[in-house]
């Protein structure tokens, strides 16, 4: 039976702003199916985003949604999760949003290992602002601000997040929605900070400047670079050229999660405060007895 998206979508907000053929829709659908599969209730779920094409996603899904400032989504999400640890918080971000202007927040959220799920839609370009190169644009590719080719090397976002301390790191691509959903579900079920990078197509801004103007062709091209992790590990550096590993690239269930760590700290702080209050009370009584004793002695 086909999945019924209607309870999860704000259909009255359609049509959406994304270009025909955009990969973001595939990702939002996979995200919804993963939420449903995990038993997440819309009332107890918040979706947070920053700025960019991808960041418009929360406006179309039917739950608690927050569309914040450029690059800052993880900071708002951290506040929500710490204030209400029992809720589910997912963040959806583009590559420019997450890795450039939000890069500092990204690495520190990884380090803290807070129980959020971050989907990075990596289309290697700033789409909404008109096709400028991003921190994940491959060298030599063309962009509105790289008319002679991009000079900078690209970030490997999964390696970055893994190194920074994220405890679930996975990569998927828009060409395989079932696989993508499985990785997102794994991230949602993981207790800790989960990052799922999804390699996506922006044929409008990236593709037309880089010989891939057709959305389906670009999606095929992206899919052709994907290699399962087990196979990737057997490949030589030469064989890895132009390819990237997909799957769960890193998972660590031994590191305690931030909200749990804070709850334990709270118990310690309360116990200490109670003990201090008792000592203080005892000292006050002793001091009073001494005064009373001294007074009665005089009499």
């Amino acid at each position: 039976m086909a999945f019924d998206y209607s309870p999860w979508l704000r259909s009255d907000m359609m049509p959406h702003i994304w270009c025909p053929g955009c990969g973001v829709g595939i990702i939002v659908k996979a995200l919804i199916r993963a939420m449903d599969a995990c038993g997440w209730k819309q009332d107890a779920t918040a979706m947070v985003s920053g700025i960019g094409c991808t960041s418009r996603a929360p406006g179309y899904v039917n739950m608690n949604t927050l569309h914040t400032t450029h690059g800052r989504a993880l900071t708002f999400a951290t506040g929500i999760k710490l204030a209400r640890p029992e809720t589910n918080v997912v963040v959806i971000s583009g590559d420019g949003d997450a890795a450039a202007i939000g890069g500092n927040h990204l690495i520190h959220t990884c380090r803290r290992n807070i129980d959020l799920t971050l989907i990075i839609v990596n289309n290697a370009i700033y789409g909404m602002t008109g096709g400028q190169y991003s921190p994940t644009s491959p060298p030599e590719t063309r962009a509105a601000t790289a008319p002679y080719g991009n000079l900078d090397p690209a970030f490997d976002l999964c390696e970055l997040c893994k190194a920074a301390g994220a405890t679930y790191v996975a990569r998927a691509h828009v060409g395989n929605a079932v696989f993508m959903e499985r990785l997102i579900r794994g991230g949602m079920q993981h207790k800790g900070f989960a990052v799922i990078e999804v390699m996506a197509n922006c044929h409008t801004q990236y593709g037309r400047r880089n010989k891939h103007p057709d959305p389906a062709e670009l999606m095929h091209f992206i899919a052709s670079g994907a290699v399962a992790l087990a196979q990737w590990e057997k490949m030589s550096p030469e064989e890895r050229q132009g390819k990237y590993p997909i799957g769960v690239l890193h998972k660590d269930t031994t590191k305690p999660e931030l909200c749990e760590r804070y709850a334990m700290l709270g118990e310690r702080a309360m116990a200490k405060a109670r003990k201090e209050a008792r000592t203080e009370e005892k000292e006050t009584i002793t001091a009073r007895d001494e005064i009373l004793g001294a007074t009665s002695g005089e009499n």
Partner: protein
Amino acid sequence: MSYPVSGRAFMAGNEIISEAALRAGCTFFAGYPITPSSEIAAHMALRLPQVGGTFIQMEDEIAAMGAVIGASLAGAKTMTATSGPGLSLKQENIGFAMIAEVPCVIVDVQRGGPSTGLPTAPSQGDIMQARWGTHGDHAVIALTPLYPREVYVETVRAFHLAELYRTPVYVLVDEIIAHTTESFELPADEGLIKPRGEYAEAAVNTWRPFYDFFQGKHLHITGLSHTQEGFPTVNPEIVHRSNLHIVNKIVNAQPALERNEEYMLDDAEIAVICFGSPGRSAREAVNRARAKGIKAGIFRIITFWPFPVETVRKLTDRVKAVVVPEMNLGMLSLQVEKSAMRRDVRIIGVNVTGGVPIEPQQILTAIEEAYHGV
């Protein structure tokens, strides 16, 4: 050590702000280290977990402001504290809290600027940044208390006003107030301490739907111009009305928000208009002036924004001259000048930006100059 909520207390300004915040029901604080506000974060780190609240030190000032907004949307009463350079960084998300109508309290312990300026010395150079720091049309509430008890009262009021007007509210102090330790009588509750759920009257001040997250309403909160349902719009009429809403809800409330302290002002011929720390030196200066037979008085502003334009206008109408001592190069003077209807009103500024307090003698000299009409 336990902290009293009534009777006598002996605390420094930064500690007073922290304890008042806890008294007002603050359960979430996010900050970033910056002098001279750091003791607030340290105190909240100590105290919040004791009362079931949450403290977090974020990776930067922007993140701290983001976390405060997120936690507030999740239902918590929230606060952050910073100083000038940090306030510059926070402006982006402060604008978000304004347009998205998210209650929160921002403490700014002012130090010398611009830029890194004087990290451990006082200034009053942030009042215009507080008013105009973020882009686009907006209005702000900023409270500028001076004495310990007043710092406590105004911090509690800041939380109340944030909830009532659904907007970030500033508590603006300076390094002198933050680090001066004094004994004072803790104030009684003025009826301003209540949970968010009891602010039904705030609904009229809220353009978007008046709810928090996780209340079954599936809210959409955005920094984009939005409809009253909360969704993005580019409809010129709706956008214009939403901008008028976030400005007018504060501008129109000015009379209700106004709070000042008057000292020997009834028969005054020379009015000293000030806010914050210079108020202490102004007292001494006015006492000395009175001893010399000069009728001087003080008008000290406690609700700085929205500015008490009418009250200042009436005052400038009836006095011979105005003396404005401030630890900046004339930001309050500019407001006084704007407020005065009489274009010939004489305004003498006493401006100190070297990171030292304004001394009573400097104010007295200005009072004498104003009185004798040099």
